[in-house]
């Protein structure tokens, strides 16, 4: 075979090999590690899957934060001003976690509808609203008149 053509075939074979390996890895990893975001309304209406890693977010309801006196257990409610989700968490909350502030939690939805968070994120800027939460609030506002069946 001509050396240049031989070189090309080998090059292409290697590229295909590495690419297919990478694509396989990517597909495998994407299947496992995508975290969909659900609004409190979606969770309350049962749209969110249970027992799977998801993200939920909204504004922390004023007066809802309760701490355990002996452990680092904390629970609070978040809302999109339409529905409420109860979140439980064990650990240290971020510096900017405050009542009335937008937060995003990552974790699993338990069968009883409580959200067990493995991580709570509040952004490092007071004025900053997580885009997911901003969107959720916008949706909740926009949906109220047009989709009454959401409140079943």
């Amino acid at each position, binding site marked *: 075979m001509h050396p240049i053509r031989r070189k090309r075939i080998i*090059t292409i074979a290697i*590229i295909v090999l590495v690419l297919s390996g*990478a694509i396989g890895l990517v597909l495998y990893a994407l299947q496992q590690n*995508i*975290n969909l975001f659900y609004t409190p309304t979606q969770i309350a209406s049962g749209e969110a899957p249970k027992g799977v890693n998801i993200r939920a977010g909204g504004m922390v309801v004023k007066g809802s934060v309760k701490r355990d006196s002996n452990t680092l257990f904390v629970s609070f409610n978040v809302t999109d001003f339409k529905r409420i989700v109860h979140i439980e968490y064990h*650990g*240290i909350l971020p510096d900017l976690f405050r009542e009335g502030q937008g937060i995003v939690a990552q974790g699993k939805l338990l069968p009883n509808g409580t959200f067990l968070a493995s991580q709570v994120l509040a952004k490092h800027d007071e004025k*900053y609203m997580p*885009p997911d939460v901003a969107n959720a609030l916008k949706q909740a506002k926009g949906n109220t008149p047009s989709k009454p069946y959401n409140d079943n």
Partner: protein
Amino acid sequence: MLPEVGNFSLILSLFFACCLAVVPIIGYWRHTPILLSTARPLTLLMSCFVLVSFIVLAIAFLTDDFSVLYVSLNSNSKLPIWYKFSAIWGSHEGSLLLWVLILCGWSSVVALKSHTLPKEVGPIVLSVLGMVATGFLLFMLFTSSPFVRDLPNVPVDGADLNPLLQDIGLVIHPPMLYMGYVGFSVAFAFAIAALITGNLNSSWARWARPWTAVSWAFLTLGITLGSWWAYYELGWGGWWFWDPVENASLMPWLAGTALIHSLAVTEKRGVFKSWTVLLAIFTFSLSLLGTFLVRSGVLTSVHAFAADPTRGVFILALLIVLIGSSLLLYALRASQVKAGVAFGVTGREAWLLLNNIILTVLTLTVLLGTLYPLLFEALDLGRISVGAPYFNTVFSPLALLLMVFMAIGPLSKWHSTKPSLLVRLCVWPGVVSILLAGIISYIYHLGGMAWLSLSVAFWVVLLTCKDWFIKVSAGSKGIIPRARQLPRNYYGMMLAHLGLVVSLIGILMVSTCSKETTVKIAAGQTVSFAGYQFTLNQFESLKGPNYVADQADIAVYQDGKLVAQLKPEKRFYEARRQVMTEASLNAGITRDLYVSLGEKLNDQAWSMRIYVKAFVRWIWFGGILMMCGGVLSALDKRYRARVEGRHA
């Protein structure tokens, strides 16, 4: 008055940048040497006026001129003076000015060195840099001028710099990162100049090589600093988060690494010519994409500044024009390049080709993971985030594969190497490293992945040393004269490769052997963790220049001996009414003790995070070694003023 001077000076520099982008190209087209020769003075004029603007902004910050909106939003009269200076690049407008200033800096250095280039190449390179500068100056003047006044309602005091940015790491991290990002524009400009002049021979690769190596070194340092900063400042003890903005700096780094290697092949052997040009375009495009991702706020990130759609659209347009036109030029010109000479399957070219394939694939997987949430949302499938597990799963195996080949490449010779020779060279180091790594993993109860990574680490170290030994022991002269004769380029490569190994060991150890816990602790209590006793002596209230803080005083004992005194703080910044965790750590070669305060739970008790981070320093030490490698190889004698004679 002064801020207006700054703005006016920015407009003047835009004028010169426009001239620079147009005049030398016309000169090349019409064969008019006088027009070509304008490139140098135009570059220097453009740079001078940008420098004036920057100095004006610096003065505004240092003199607390709160009538300037940008100053009042990002500074405060109580801010320490060095943070006042670094607040210049603390937010969007100023960091763009820094970007342009650094671009001008690089352009000026190219202009001052352009006498070593053939007479039409230098001006075209400068002209391309002028086009980039024009785009960014337009962007700055139309959407984000840092000199906008807030008259007549001048605030009494500024809103203060984001407390997260009030740190030495953030004083130097952005300039280093930008030096790297923008430095790739020089390699890009050389590539475009090569396309315009049609001289796609190996000489452009030789001119571009030192520039690329230096920018790569800066980018490496910038990323290293960023990681170090995130580690001690964010209070989570993490050193890499796969945050979109971190990815935005990692992608040009990966592409730039590929570019360095492919430039070497193009220069030495004259193959991969069109690929190298494409890679230079690709690398700079990724730098621009990084700027777009950071500045437009399309992605959720700790770095996201206020999302402003007009800015995003402007950068996107700039991105499309720059990338689109350079790819168009590439499509028109690259077809003229003839296929290069053939090379053997086991020659060094082949190994470097493999390096380029893997690095490109790595870049693409990071790109995919970063843009996937955008894609998902654009298709209306919902809002998602792609977390660290995705990147770890995809990145680690490919990176390890890359490192396996990284050790073989230098051993093989250009054109072709006998496979039997390579096998003979590699068998013993392979066996030794697998056994050694196995023993270590067994003793310290590490898992299979750790065994694999350690084997790769030993493999690279052994083969790199062996290669050096073969090179210095050949010939009749003694080892030391031979070792001194080896080019700096070679030592640069060695240093960079070993640096990567050091980082790999750090990453491996920190992810497998670190321990962490969250405790509730009150004054006088002691917590035992990972063989250390953490005793909380007392809490104190402190007052800093622009904050108040609660400080814990913690003594750490090991076997009854005091090993560290840690003082983590919880700060409250008054101007922004923002709380910040200031972690405290005790650094060591094999472990860091790291303590950060959580929340005040009741009158006496606080929640506290304790980490024992194994080998974490190695990650950044490796980064510094890599940077030194890059600088060393750029200082190679071959790049110095030898081009003039070759050009005819």
